């Protein structure tokens, strides 16, 4: 049992009990069971044992999530200028949510999820990182003993508020109960929660609505959670308006009260007026009633905004009068700050950045054991090694390294939704429609005694979502160790092929994160092979795409300087296209996201205008996935869109793109002829040209044809390949329908190809990869191809290419792809090609490539028997390249066509005559 001593110490009493129990059981085994059985049981037991040990670790670091419900007010009957209905408030909130979700600060609880409910149209569910204790609890429990802890809280709260205000978000709900406290070991950290949200509480027995960012300053919301007593005076005054704003200034007031409560709290006994009063757990709330608070406000109220009037001293005086003022160490600067927060006139209040500044000045910065700067101080490799060792020794379980979004992704993967849980727990209650009818109705419109005003009701407050299921699934059938979370450098086949999908997902998340970080050092190519085997998880898609597309802030700087609101010639087109773009996706139906899409497209147009680029219908579909991956960062979406189109849709959006598109389609059909001549013949003989179906495929890189869920998977793959990959995808799409297409005529062909509901994206990706390996890279040569080249592909992709473009007429005459002479030489060297030399025998005898076959072209007729005679050629997947002399070009093209039409696959033709091939001498046999 010596191995137990190596376990970290931090798993608590329960673990120790189980440990003792296990030791006892194994001790029994050792004495009473045969020796071989002992060995067996030990191993089995040890496995169980490890799992158990791990579960305590997970409990420690897998985050908690809290869910709460909001009601969005329905405004029916309104229509937009184009006659379409206005988006519902819940939709509007949905669109604004990603911005709120994107806010990151160490002292903000992070929003992770927002959804409309299925059961009631007007209810929405918000999920946020949750900690079960609030600042109010901590104050009550008297845990804030020393000044240092208080100072840390001042700093944390003010810097979080500073972050919110700098990002244009009003908290609206700040009080000691909305500040969560996260406890790790002995440290406590403030986490502001419920920010940016609408709140409702019955104050003075009337409903007050408070609004801020998410709810468009409250216009969309009817009710929500409770808030504290110490509301800013102007918010209480506006009560009769029923809708009124939370502002930066009201936040300052409410923050003043939070600071005051921390400042005044004392854990022990106050010695005041000679009496000993136990004030353990003092907070202002029970000590000062709502009435008293209002009286103080009333006393200080003045119409003259120039008169400064603070309520702090009155509050303190009241506590003294009530003999409830705790003992506290006097702190002049802080009192000044708080006094300035609690000014009756909004305009007299100090601003949040200034508060943060003052606090920083007087308290200093938070000492951090683990900050990033300390990493940069490491100079030598030995130091770094020591640091890594140190990190490993800390009892990480892997989950600590998962981001909060990834953790929630795992939580969701376990099958439940916040809505189902809230319904089951009775937090959301659905009522029979009849219960929302009033008892009495008169004069058509007046009604009384309406007990329920909506079909659904819900309880206020944040509810912790259970996570046991996630954790149980995670552990299922596993022997887990912290190291296993990293697959890097581990042979995948060895021992990680387990069936625990959840665990695999978590592991993949960390692996991808590791790779993304490593690209800074090793370049993108280091990531590619791993990415294609692991797959991309939606929470990481933005980062992965940015890495693959090489997008960083230099790529969007120009966008940020644009005026995307100015009118533009494409406005009308955008106005009609955007509201119908991918409308099955709920985010795309929201006004905020549609507005972002408009900005992205407009920004892109303004910037690329000088290159003669314009908006084509379909650009909207193409830009959408990038926006959905970066909903709070349209500038990133713009940069990704620009780079992606530069690579894979190069010149497609030129004002006059017909040359580009026709070349692309021409090459596409050549590739069809190369891989599937039978289908090619069928398509051609039916007049089924690529123009009739493939334009939307290529113009939008399948964004117009595939639903987003399938599309993003396809693009994950596309981005790790070269600029010809969309052609490979198209071949795979065509191949999927091959049998159907071969059996029908023109009309049905068109209908089949436009309607592909049951498409399996994995098959398409697999086949597209296959085609990429099968087709010689130079066969995809296009004059208008993007100059961008991936740098991680094989040698053959990096060859020089001396090919020249063909006119559209020449392209149409040709029925197979062209091969570059550089690739020909490369292939000859490696014996990866069949050469069919069509020059006359005499010429052939004088000089020819070794291992080439002579097929004098006398009658342009394909001789299948001759071909069969050549060893291995029929079954081989290697290219069969037709080679010609300088006078035989057209004739050879005809011959190649004849073979294609006879159904011979992998036929191509060299792009230049034998005579002009460079560097051929080492491979040529001379007479």
């Amino acid at each position, binding site marked *: 049992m010596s191995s137990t001593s190596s376990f970290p110490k931090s798993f608590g009493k329960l673990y120790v009990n189980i440990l003792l129990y296990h030791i006892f059981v194994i001790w029994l085994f050792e004495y009473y069971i045969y020796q071989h059985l002992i060995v067996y049981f030990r191993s089995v037991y040890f496995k169980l044992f490890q799992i158990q040990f791990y579960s305590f670790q997970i409990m420690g670091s897998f985050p908690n999530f809290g869910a709460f419900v909001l009601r969005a007010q329905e405004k029916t009957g309104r229509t937009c200028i184009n*006659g*379409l209905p206005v988006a519902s408030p819940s939709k509007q909130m949905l669109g604004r949510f990603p911005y709120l979700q994107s806010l990151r600060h160490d002292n903000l609880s992070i929003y992770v999820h927002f959804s409309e409910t299925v059961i009631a149209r007007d209810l929405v569910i918000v999920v946020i990182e949750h900690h079960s204790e609030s600042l109010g609890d901590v104050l009550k429990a008297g845990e804030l003993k020393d000044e240092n802890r208080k100072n840390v809280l001042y700093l944390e709260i003010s810097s979080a508020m500073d972050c919110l205000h700098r990002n244009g978000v009003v908290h609206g709900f700040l009080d000691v109960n909305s500040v969560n406290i996260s406890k790790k070991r002995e440290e406590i950290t403030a986490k502001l929660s419920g920010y940016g949200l609408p709140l409702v509480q019955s104050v003075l027995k009337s409903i007050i609505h408070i609004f801020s960012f998410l709810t468009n300053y409250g216009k969309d919301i009817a009710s929500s959670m409770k808030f504290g007593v110490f509301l800013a005076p102007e918010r209480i005054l506006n009560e009769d308006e029923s809708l009124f704003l939370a502002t930066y200034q009201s936040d300052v007031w409410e923050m003043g009260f939070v600071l005051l409560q921390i400042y005044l709290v004392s854990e022990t006994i106050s010695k005041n007026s000679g009496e000993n009063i136990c004030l353990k757990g003092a907070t202002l709330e029970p000590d000062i009633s709502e009435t008293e608070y209002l009286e103080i406000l009333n006393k200080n109220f003045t119409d003259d905004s120039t008169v400064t009037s603070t309520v702090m001293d009155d509050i303190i005086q009241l506590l003294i009068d009530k003999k409830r003022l705790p003992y506290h160490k006097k702190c002049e600067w802080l009192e000044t700050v708080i006094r300035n927060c609690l000014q009756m006139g909004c305009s007299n209040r100090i601003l949040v950045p200034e508060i943060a500044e003052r606090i920083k000045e007087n308290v200093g910065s938070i000492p951090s054991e683990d900050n990033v700067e300390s990493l940069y101080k490491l100079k030598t490799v030995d130091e770094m090694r020591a640091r890594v060792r140190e990190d490993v020794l800390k009892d990480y379980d892997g989950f600590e390294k998962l981001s909060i979004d990834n953790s929630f992704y795992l939580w969701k993967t376990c099958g439940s939704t916040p809505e189902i849980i809230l319904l089951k727990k009775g937090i959301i209650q659905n009522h029979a429609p009849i219960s929302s009818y009033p008892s009495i109705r008169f004069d058509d419109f007046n009604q009384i005694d309406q007990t329920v005003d909506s079909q659904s009701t819900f309880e206020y407050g944040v509810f912790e979502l259970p996570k046991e299921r996630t954790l149980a699934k995670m552990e299922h059938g596993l022997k887990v160790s912290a190291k296993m979370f990293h697959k890097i450098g581990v042979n995948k086949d060895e021992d990680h092929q387990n069936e625990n999908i959840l665990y695999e997902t978590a592991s993949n998340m960390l692996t991808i994160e590791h790779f993304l970080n490593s690209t800074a050092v090793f370049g993108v190519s280091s990531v590619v092979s791993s990415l294609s085997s692991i797959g991309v998880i939606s929470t990481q898609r933005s980062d992965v795409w940015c890495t693959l597309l090489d997008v960083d802030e230099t790529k969007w700087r120009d966008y940020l300087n644009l005026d995307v609101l100015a009118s533009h010639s494409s406005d009308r*087109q955008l106005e*009609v*296209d955007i*509201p*119908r*773009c*991918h*409308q099955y996706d709920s985010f795309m139906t929201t006004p905020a996201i549609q507005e972002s899409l408009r900005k992205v497209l407009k920004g892109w147009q303004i910037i690329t205008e000088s290159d003669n680029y*314009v908006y*084509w*219908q*379909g650009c*909207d*579909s193409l830009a959408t996935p990038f926006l959905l991956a970066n909903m709070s960062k349209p500038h990133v979406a713009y940069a990704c869109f620009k780079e992606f189109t530069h690579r894979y849709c190069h010149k497609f959006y030129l*004002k006059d793109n*017909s040359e580009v598109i026709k070349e692309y389609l021409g090459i596409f059909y050549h590739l069809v002829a190369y891989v599937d001549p039978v289908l090619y013949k069928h398509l051609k003989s*039916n*007049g*089924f*040209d690529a*123009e*009739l*179906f493939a*334009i*939307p495929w290529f*113009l*939008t890189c399948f964004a*117009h044809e595939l639903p987003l869920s399938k599309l993003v998977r396809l693009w994950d793959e596309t981005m790790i390949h070269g600029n010809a990959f969309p052609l490979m995808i198209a071949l795979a799409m065509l191949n999927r329908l091959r049998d159907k297409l071969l059996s029908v*005529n*023109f*009309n049905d062909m*068109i*209908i089949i190809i*436009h309607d592909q509901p049951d498409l399996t994206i994995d098959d398409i990706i697999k086949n597209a990869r296959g085609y990429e390996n099968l087709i010689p890279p130079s066969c995809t040569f296009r004059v208008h191809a993007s100059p961008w080249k991936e740098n991680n592909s094989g040698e053959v992709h990096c060859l020089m290419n001396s090919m020249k473009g063909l006119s559209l007429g020449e392209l149409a005459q040709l029925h197979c792809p062209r091969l570059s002479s550089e690739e020909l030489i490369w292939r000859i060297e490696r014996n990866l090609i069949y050469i069919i030399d069509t020059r006359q025998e005499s010429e052939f005898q004088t000089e020819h490539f070794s291992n080439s076959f002579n097929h004098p072209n006398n009658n342009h007729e394909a001789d299948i028997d001759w071909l069969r005679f050549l060893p291995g050629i029929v079954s081989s997947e290697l290219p069969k390249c037709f080679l010609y002399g300088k006078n035989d070009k057209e004739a050879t093209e005809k011959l190649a066509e004849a073979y294609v039409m006879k159904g011979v696959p992998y036929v191509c033709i060299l792009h230049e005559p034998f005579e002009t091939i460079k560097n051929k001498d080492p491979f040529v046999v001379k007479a």
Partner: protein
Amino acid sequence: MAARNAGGAARPGGPNRTCQFKLVLLGESAVGKSSLVLRFVKGQFHEYQESTIGAAFLTQTVCLDDATIKFEIWDTAGQERYHSLAPMYYRGAQAAIVVYDITNQESFQKAKNWVKELQRQASPNIVMALAGNKADVANKRTVEYEEANAYAEDNALLFMETSAKTSMNVNDIFMAIAKKLPIGPAQGEPTGTVDMNQPQQQQKGSCCK
């Protein structure tokens, strides 16, 4: 199936000839071309019909008293930039519906341009119809019925105001076209294929089998 039933006296199994005709829809973007086709072919309507890129192809059969007519419908992209593709679709077409949006004056101007282009470039016997779509939002109308009607009469076009949303006049306009199409005994080549290389392709007349 509403569309089929409304397509006239359906007499399945009757001794009718089946004729195929190629029909093309043209017009400014977002006037409701795809919606008209979708309503006619599938009896459906989507509030947020996705934009068409290039062109879409559908078929629908209607029954007349003495013949069954199969429409091969090319629904084209409306954006001006796709204009260069249009000849590929209207070349060889026996019928065309030019669509505008009655709430959008500009789209009516655009429709007139299409009519002109068809008169110049398309086959001379082409049956042309003008459809003023979105008649369900007549309260936002900017193109008067009389104005469009007068224009249609001047140019010998069939004319109807339609609504893909309520299905008003949708089947009617296709039926009206069907009745005007030449259903002769002449044997023609099957159409449907779009010829991109022969701009001077001649009108094949009817094509009954």
